[in-house]
């Protein structure tokens, strides 16, 4: 039990140091205006897609190829689970 506690404490220290390095060296904070090139373009040109919700416009028009991949992932997962559940226990 004692050894386990020491291990957990060590893990905590290591992860804390890792987080410290990541946070200290990037120092991101909330932006005050839209700086990204691509999102500025999307905000200016979303009306070509016929949608008012820009997130949906990005999902289904500007980056619809990503959505295709996502749908494939759902497709694979459902087939995989139905395979795993229907599988006979034969070995």
């Amino acid at each position, binding site marked *: 039990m004692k050894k386990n506690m020491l291990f957990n404490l060590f893990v*905590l220290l290591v*992860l804390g140091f890792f*987080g410290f390095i990541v946070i200290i060296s990037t120092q*991101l904070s909330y*932006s005050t205006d839209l700086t990204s090139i691509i999102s500025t373009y999307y905000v200016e040109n979303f009306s070509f897609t016929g949608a008012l919700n820009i997130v949906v416009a990005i*999902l289904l028009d500007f980056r619809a190829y990503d959505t295709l991949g996502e749908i494939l992932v759902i497709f694979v997962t459902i087939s995989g689970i139905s395979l795993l559940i229907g599988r006979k226990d034969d070995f």
Partner: protein
Amino acid sequence: MINGINIGIVLFLIGLYGIITNKNLIKIIMSIGICSNGIVLFFISIGYVKNAFSPIIDSATTNVVDPVPQALMLTMIVINLCDTAIALAITVWIYKKFGTINIEEIT
């Protein structure tokens, strides 16, 4: 210093702590879920713009938060759901085959 971005990173590390210290497979899968929630918070905070509106435009305003991370995260949430589902399905088989879900006793 305390903003959504850093809280997201910390949440990711808390999930990582859970993955390392837990031995139960279900708990490890839950910790992966915590990790992914941390990343969602991280991404959404990256796109946050102070004093801006949600990216649904019905008037002439262009003062909106960054919509790209939100769209990416909608995709990522579904993918992570699928990962979790596969993990649970395989865990059931692990339990059937080995009689345990303790990751140290699976030999």
